[in-house]
């Protein structure tokens, strides 16, 4: 035996030795380069470390990366980073800032909008970003075969309807002037087209050869989107995270961050723990239960965080079907508003974190200061019902999209009790969102609903969509109240003089306040929790909430910090 070991190497020993040598070689190859690294590489690594990787929390999976069908706030964040639009609203919502465009002009008669694309704008694969990409994208937005949700919004463009109905091969109102210039022409004078220049632009050189009706299933929208924004897509682990890398060639300057990770979490509680442990830097979209007073207070009291409240854009409200004869008398709907102790609801269920509105148009500039504030007064509510000859045996069914949280259900139970104390008889009926949508928007088979309504960037959007016969007309409001309500809505949408528009909206607000289509409960404020290590240009010390009481004085509409993510940095 011994001689065999000393004098010869058998096959097994040879293989073992070979495997050892091979393994060692592989390990050596995989080992860090260490001191052999070039000074340039070291400097780059150090800079990358210094720039840092920002982690934002998202409270649910992303549907897709398809801007044509997008509805989620999560998707908006993604598009803002990777597939940005020509322009976007500025932070205080007083105007617009250029993104893929460098500048734009509006003709004196407010029908022609000419955008000059930034000369250095490029796609992440190096291809030139041109006016053809914009034309291509807007044709997709106007093509119902793509299941686009923007067809009706963009119908204000000249020739849009003919194109959408396949009666024309191109959109008359979109003209490519040159490689970097595109002109949109509206069918009538309107100051509202800029709100339609905020849709993400898609790359024609990647998607141009694909049939529009098969577009939604393309891997581009699920696995490998290519964009032109300040961050480029790196990878998406379904239901876990999306990793974005800074686009150092971004035409407005290199982002200060190295990367941005959109961390998807299973529940807001996980978000709370992740923030507390420093594993994430802020709650980006539904990543934290900010309606819980205890949660918000814990972060306000924690010196490692800054908490900021801003005005939200979703208002929770009851909406009435005015086709029902028992809602015909406006005093019944006024009684509904007086019956609800809205401040109490905000204090108890929203941690004091909400603002009361008295009409469904929540755009500050459109609200006159003489609206009825509908103070909580159950006696007055009962009196109004009696004056209106209300049948106190009449049961009103309120449709709700199924509430999954017991806290939300407790809030609805409290509202039900308030309404019943005033004399209403309420039946709450929960249903799946698809059934709810069908009954509310399509068949109008409802008496009242309670839901969170989006407010649209401009009052025009909400009015036309919800309250006129041009839109979904869920409430049957314009027909029910008669007069020139609908004409005024249309007129205001066509005016370019903001002061004149404001006058009309003041009028419409007074109508909606006195003869309510909705009983708005509140607009929930957004509460943001930031790790102190993160520096955000728009946040000043004055914006930081020091106590729960400060939550009721939110910063006006400063909600879109994430639209300027490239300006964020880590301190020190």
């Amino acid at each position: 035996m011994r001689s065999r070991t000393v004098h010869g190497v058998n096959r097994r020993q040879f293989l073992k030795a070979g495997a050892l040598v091979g393994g060692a070689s592989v390990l050596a190859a995989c080992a860090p380069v260490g001191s052999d690294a070039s000074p340039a590489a070291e400097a780059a690594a150090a800079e990358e470390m210094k720039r840092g990787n920002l982690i934002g929390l998202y409270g649910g999976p992303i549907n897709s990366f398809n801007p044509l069908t997008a509805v989620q706030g999560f998707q908006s964040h993604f598009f803002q980073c990777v597939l940005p639009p020509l322009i976007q609203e500025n932070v205080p919502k007083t105007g617009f800032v250029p993104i893929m465009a460098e500048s734009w002009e509006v003709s004196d008669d407010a029908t022609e909008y000419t955008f000059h694309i930034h000369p250095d704008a490029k796609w992440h694969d190096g291809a030139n970003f041109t006016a053809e990409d914009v034309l291509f994208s807007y044709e997709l937005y106007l093509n119902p075969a793509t299941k686009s949700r923007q067809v009706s919004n963009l119908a204000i463009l000249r020739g849009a309807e003919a194109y959408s109905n396949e009666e024309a091969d191109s959109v008359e109102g979109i003209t490519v002037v040159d490689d970097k210039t595109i002109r949109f022409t509206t069918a009538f004078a309107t100051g509202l087209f800029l709100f339609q220049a905020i849709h993400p632009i898609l790359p024609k050189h990647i998607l141009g050869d694909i049939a529009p009706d098969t577009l939604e299933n393309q891997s581009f929208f699920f696995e490998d989107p290519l964009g032109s924004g300040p961050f480029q897509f790196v990878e998406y682990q379904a239901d876990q995270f999306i990793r974005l890398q800074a686009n150092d060639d971004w035409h407005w300057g290199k982002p200060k961050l190295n990367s941005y990770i959109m961390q998807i979490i299973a529940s807001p509680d996980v978000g709370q723990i992740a923030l507390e442990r420093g594993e994430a830097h802020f709650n980006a979209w539904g990543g934290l239960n900010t309606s819980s007073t205890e949660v918000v207070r814990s972060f306000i009291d924690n010196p490692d965080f800054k908490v900021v409240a801003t005005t939200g854009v979703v208002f929770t409200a009851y909406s009435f079907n005015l086709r029902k004869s028992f809602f015909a008398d406006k005093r019944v709907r006024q009684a509904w508003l007086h019956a609800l102790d809205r401040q109490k609801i905000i204090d108890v269920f929203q941690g004091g974190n909400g603002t009361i509105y008295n009409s469904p148009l929540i755009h500050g500039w459109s609200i006159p200061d003489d609206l009825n504030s509908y103070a909580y007064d159950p006696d007055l509510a009962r009196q109004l019902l009696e004056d209106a000859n209300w049948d106190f045996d009449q049961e009103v069914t309120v449709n709700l999209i199924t509430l999954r949280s017991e806290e939300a259900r407790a809030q609805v139970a409290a509202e039900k009790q308030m309404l019943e104390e005033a004399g209403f008889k309420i039946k709450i009926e929960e249903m799946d969102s698809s059934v709810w949508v069908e009954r509310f928007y399509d068949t109008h088979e409802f008496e009242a609903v309670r839901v969170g309504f989006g407010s649209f960037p401009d009052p025009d959007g909400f009015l036309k969509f919800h309250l006129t016969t041009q839109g979904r007309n869920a409430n049957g409001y314009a027909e029910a109240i008669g007069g020139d309500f609908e004409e005024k809505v249309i007129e205001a949408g066509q005016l370019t003089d903001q002061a004149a528009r404001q006058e009309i909206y003041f009028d419409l607000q007074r109508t909606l306040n006195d003869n309510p289509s909705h009983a708005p409960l509140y607009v929930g404020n957004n509460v943001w929790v930031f790790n102190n290590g993160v520096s955000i240009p728009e946040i000043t010390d004055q914006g930081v909430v020091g106590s729960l009481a400060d939550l009721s004085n939110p910063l006006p509409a400063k909600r879109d910090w994430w639209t300027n993510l490239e300006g964020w940095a880590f301190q020190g």
Partner: protein
Amino acid sequence: MSATVRPRLQPEQIGLSTNRNGNTAAARFRRHKVAVASLGIIAILGIIAIFAPIVALQDPYTVDLDNIRQPPSIAHILGTDSAGRDMWARMVYGARISMSVGFVANVISISIGVLIGTVSGYAGGWVDNILMRFTELVMNFPTFFAILMLVALLGPNIINVMVVIGVLGWEGLARLLRAQTLSLREQAFVEAARCIGTPHPQIILRHILPNLQPYILVAATLGVAGTILTESALSFLGLGVQIPQASWGSMLNSAQSLTVLTNSPWLWLPPGVAISVAVLAMNFVGDGLRDAFDPRMEV
């Protein structure tokens, strides 16, 4: 003379029920102390559910926004919930919902199971073939997800929950009863009934069904436990009772919040304990009954 001679099968003939020495199933059940205690617990829960308006002391739906999430006190022995409602009152009314869902859904599933099982086993042939293939088809649905989907589509309310759970929970019993019926229909007394021209439905009702009673009883007891759990799970996910009703599962829903979980145990502990106790008790009674009807168990 009537054609309905009813030579009921003697227990020992099918290996069930009593024996001649008075060693009855009831006696065997009484020997199972845990099962007897569990039966007592179920009886108490039943009484609480039936007399809820008296036992609850307070209205379970009255909201008091000035007293939300109060810990247990003299005024509210189990504290108050997120809308200031009395937890004890909601627990009591929750028992009503949870127990009635358990029983009604079970009645539905047992009715379907008995019908399909006995007809399939008795008729045999192509009827058996079709019914059993259908049973297997239903059996292959992932039941809980099917229930989730149906409740979401039909709308979450207590009637829908009962019906959906009932309609999707009969396959096991149907197969069990079919097997037993196959054996019973070959017995002499069934042959005799057939020979004197007793109609088939009558044979099933008068001769087969009484002999399946022990199996149905055991399945029903265990089924109620399962149904209470399913209802709790649905309500926990927000697909159970309508606002402002309470069931134990919907009350447990608040435990999904980390802050409630850590700071307000009175919101989730009582319904959690109630579900556990009710389900355990049902299972023990089911075990006790199974043992009692098992002829191999001697007193």
